[in-house]
């Protein structure tokens, strides 16, 4: 039980999402031990009677408030309601949410338009984040933990039909053998 207790204390003082690796280092156990214990803590916290929930995004975890207390907490923090999403923003976020991590060329192919500007906009707003591989051209995008919070989910995989849309054979067929569909090479090069 001491690992459970230690993780709870660390998550309580952390003011940013903590990686499983970081938690393992801090508690001197293996990442596998952390994974298992976080799994058990999720069972303890992630049910509707709990005011504390564990949000997992990729390999990071953080404590967040309950979706059922959202109205109350919004009022207490005097937060304003998040603004409306435009149609291109919503479409891009949806594809990145279901398919992330996703490359820009894959995203462009699914939407049929060049997404450089909308991606930049979503990154500035902190709804999408980029992960640069060592090879600069292998940048991939995924939604941020903040966007997961805005949806009231504790894991992006809770989206409806996630499994089905996350991996789609047809997309693989389109993306792998064929050349990319968009032509806007210039803009691609400049924005990335």
């Amino acid at each position: 039980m001491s690992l459970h207790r230690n993780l709870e204390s660390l998550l309580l003082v952390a003011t940013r999402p903590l990686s499983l690796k970081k938690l393992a280092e801090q508690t001197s156990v293996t990442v596998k031990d952390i994974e298992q214990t976080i799994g058990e803590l999720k069972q303890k916290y992630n049910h509707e009677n709990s005011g504390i929930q564990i949000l997992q995004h990729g390999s990071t975890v953080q404590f967040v408030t309950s979706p059922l207390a959202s109205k109350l907490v919004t009022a207490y923090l005097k937060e304003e309601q998040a603004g409306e999403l435009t149609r291109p923003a919503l479409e891009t976020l949806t594809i990145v949410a279901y398919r992330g991590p996703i490359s820009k060329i894959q995203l462009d192919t699914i939407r049929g338009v060049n997404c450089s500007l909308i991606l930049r906009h979503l990154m500035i707003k902190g709804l999408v984040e980029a992960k640069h591989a060592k090879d600069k051209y292998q940048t991939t995008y995924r939604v941020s933990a903040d966007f997961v919070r805005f949806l009231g989910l504790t894991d992006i995989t809770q989206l409806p039909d996630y499994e089905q849309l996350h991996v789609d054979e047809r997309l693989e067929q389109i993306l792998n053998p064929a050349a990319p569909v968009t032509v806007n090479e210039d803009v691609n090069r400049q924005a990335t």
Partner: protein
Amino acid sequence: MRDVKVATFNGPLDLLLQLIESEELDISQVSLANVTDQYIASLQAMDELPIDELADFLVVAAKLLLIKSRLLVPDAAAEDDSGLELEHQLKMYQAFVAAAKHVAKLYNRHRVLYPREGYAAMEPIFNPPEHLKIDHLREIFSDVLKELEPITRLPQTVIVRTINIRHKIEQITQRLLAEKTMSFHQLLRQSNNKTEVIITFLAVLEMVKLRTAAVAQETLYADLNITALDPESEILQPIVIS
């Protein structure tokens, strides 16, 4: 062809999907061929479109024309799966348009989960980066500024330069009236980029449809010869450019 009534759309796949759905068709190569004319008509109706977006629309137009031509002349079917590819691409896009509705619903519930951003005992403690030298700051800032350059150039490439097929038709008509006949390659010599090549091709197709020009090809893969049809002829009306 039904009157096309597509209010607003978000890129070529969105336009295509709306056309197919308004005809209550399933996505297939046959229905893609069916809406090809409407798709091109919608393209022509767009008076102003940023040139970068237009390229995306034209790529889809070219694929549609290919699908349609193959259904009309089945024997001409070349080894090319771009028809199937477009069909799959559109199905995928349709699936994500549906998924976007779920996402919008979740987002609009405003059931935001809040993280912990601080706590009572948390007080700033001055802790400077030990090895930071003042000149290093200037270097980093210069790097940051340099990284801005591609982005500051971006608006210039996206400057709203509009191009439209009707102007291209006008231009080709003027040349044909002067020269009576010319090859497609001669026409293309005026094109500055891929987008214009496609625009020129679409313009020629449109002129053939309007019967203001005829196209002949002597052998397979030979250049296309474009001839102006007699403007005095009864069935021909001069193209009215609005």
